[in-house]
């Protein structure tokens, strides 16, 4: 297996291309490193492939978990994402950080998986109001971050994730990318395949929607 190419080779012209230039020296260094790693993976370097997975698996899993909400689903999605990464590695042009490129794949795969899951389990879904009535009222959002109430914090976390579940996937994903993963508007735009202006407006709507849902839970 060592001598075999485990991923399809990058296109010939891609090898001679330099990665796109980032606006910062740090970005240039990171992108060049990503480019080199992608080249090694494409040439069949098994160790490089393993390194690519181990370097990004935590990020991929956590993003998958935040997008889907279920640990097992997140694990399955993580595997799908890395398989997708290696199958499409020849499309990586170095025009972004490898991390951002993988983000995009996670978002796409998660969206597909969520859409499929919703079609399959639509009849089993429980409206949020019913869930709240069954599990009790939510505490005030302003009191969620009290440091001395671990149990309360966990309860709050569950309520927040339920609130996120109530949002459309595009709003949930943009909130996760911005607030939890801390991506810039430009990186979010690349990950979602939209312009920065769309990121701003969609993020504003998502925040407003989440606040409305949280207010609805506490009222």
């Amino acid at each position: 297996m060592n001598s075999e190419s485990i991923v399809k080779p990058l296109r010939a012209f891609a090898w001679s291309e330099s990665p796109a230039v980032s606006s910062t020296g740090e970005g240039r260094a990171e992108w060049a490193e990503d480019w080199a790693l992608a080249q090694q993976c494409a040439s069949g370097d098994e160790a490089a492939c393993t390194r690519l997975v181990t370097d990004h698996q935590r990020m991929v899993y956590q993003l998958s978990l935040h997008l889907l909400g279920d640990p097992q689903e997140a694990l399955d999605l993580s595997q799908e994402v890395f398989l997708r990464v290696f199958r499409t590695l020849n499309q990586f042009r170095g025009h972004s950080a490898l991390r951002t490129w993988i983000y995009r794949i996670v978002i796409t795969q998660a969206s597909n998986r969520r859409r499929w899951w919703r079609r399959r389990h639509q009849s089993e879904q429980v409206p949020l109001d019913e869930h709240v009535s069954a599990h009790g009222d939510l505490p005030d959002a302003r009191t969620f971050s009290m440091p001395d109430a671990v149990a309360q914090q966990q309860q709050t976390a569950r309520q927040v994730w339920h609130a996120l579940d109530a949002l459309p996937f595009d709003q949930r994903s943009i909130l996760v990318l911005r607030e939890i993963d801390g991506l810039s508007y430009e990186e979010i735009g690349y990950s979602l395949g939209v312009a920065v202006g769309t990121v701003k407006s969609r993020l504003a709507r998502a925040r407003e929607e989440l606040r409305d849902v949280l207010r609805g839970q506490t009222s």
Partner: protein
Amino acid sequence: MMCPDVRGVIAAYVDGELGGAQRLRVSRHLTDCAECAREESDLRDLGELLRGAAAPRPVPLDELQGLAAGVVSRIGAEDRQSWRAMWERASEDWHWVAVGSGAFSAAFVSVMFIFAFLYLPATEARQMNERVGTLYVMAVPEDGLGEPQMLEFGSALDSPKRDHRYAVPASFGWKAEQLLVAALDSALMRHGGTTSFRDLSAAEREEVLGILNEIGRLRSQAPARRPGGVTTVSGMHLYISDVVTASGL
């Protein structure tokens, strides 16, 4: 900055997406405007709320440790499978390639057979004609008034449709026949003696037969005179392939 201006960019301010000067202006406004400051605080709290909700979720390190090996192994298997599938597809395709090649070969052999049947006899005849020599007759009008003419007898053998009277005009009369007989004798001469007709090559036989046919044709016609005098054949050469050369007069 006024409140509406700040509200339009306050999210970008919280997200760290504003440039230095604009960020400074918003910051100054927030120190003076409690309502905008509350909006900023709400946005920050919302972010903290989300990050706080995400924090307690543990990462299954044991399962993630096997992720890389599983993915790399599966990609390798897919790659090998893709090669095997490619080979199987190629093998399946070879079946049709073999069938196609057989059909093409059969068609090719058939075409070649038809070609040989139709073309080769014509080629042999053409080659025979090409090997056949040409009989040139230099004829001069007997009254000496006309220009000498070169008459080509060989052309009579090139095409059976050719009019022999063109080759030997009637005005040459019996003298032409005599010359033909002389040419025939010469054509049959080998090393000072007359050779057997069977020893001649096919081309030579054709030439000789041509001469004989020409003599027969001339004998079947009544001799004619060219207006203005009698033509005398002044010379004749017979060339049969590259070996036999006959000459007369």
